[in-house]
């Protein structure tokens, strides 16, 4: 049977992959997706802790994961809308070229 450690290792690996994506990708949309990856890793942690925790019938892990998924969905919608607005302004989604703060 797999232990809590395996799930935590997996989720930390996913988190690192997401972090690497956020730090090194140039495309703003993929950076946003990297943030989603990190949120997913956190959700996996919540579910794993709920399952292996002392009091699974309290459902707190599940609730936190559900709310987290909802927040992530809202964040994705707003984030992509911001990227679209930025693209309309600067005609690029390349973060290295979005280097001007002038309105």
């Amino acid at each position, binding site marked *: 049977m797999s232990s809590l450690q395996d799930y935590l290792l997996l989720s930390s690996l996913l988190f690192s992959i997401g972090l690497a994506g956020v730090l090194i990708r140039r495309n703003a949309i993929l950076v946003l997706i990297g943030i989603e990856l990190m949120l997913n890793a956190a959700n*996996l942690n919540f579910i794993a802790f709920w399952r292996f925790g002392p009091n699974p019938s309290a459902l707190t892990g599940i609730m936190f994961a559900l709310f987290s998924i909802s927040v992530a969905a809202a964040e994705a919608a707003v984030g992509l809308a911001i990227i679209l607005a930025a693209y309309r302004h600067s005609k690029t989604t*390349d973060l290295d070229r979005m280097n001007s703060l002038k309105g």
Partner: protein
Amino acid sequence: MTASFMILALLTVAGMAAAMGLRNAVHCVLALTVGFAGVAALYLQLGAQFVGLTQIMVYVGAVAILAVFAIMMTHSPEPVKQPAFSSQWFVGGIVAASVFAVLAWAIHSNAAFTQGLPPQPEVTVHQIGDALMHHFVLQLEIMGLLLTAALIGAVVIAMGHEEEMK
């Protein structure tokens, strides 16, 4: 470590890594859905059926499609010959690798995490609904408010100005 966990973990990591590593943005999103589905399968394996199915519905059905739409709408017509990664990619790589190293060390050194799986708790949708309606009702309302605000905000931001449309 069971075989099913190994397969799912490999699938998830491969999908997520491909999502962050591939050149073509659309391929990235398609790989990402594999990763999301893998995470959903892990939730199902852990007995969180409702969360797993919500994960598929929200991430595969909505977020991935949204990302794909955003990519299509911001697609530059000429083929991009620039590198897919930022100029300071090695800095980012080092940071991510060190974060993973620290986390892995912390997890590995804690003996409390090596305990086996406790018996499967019986979680019905009914219980989740009860909890949402009684214990977590304030959070639920705040979430509804947040989602409404996000919906309106996203529409307003993405809509742009009337003059720009013409």
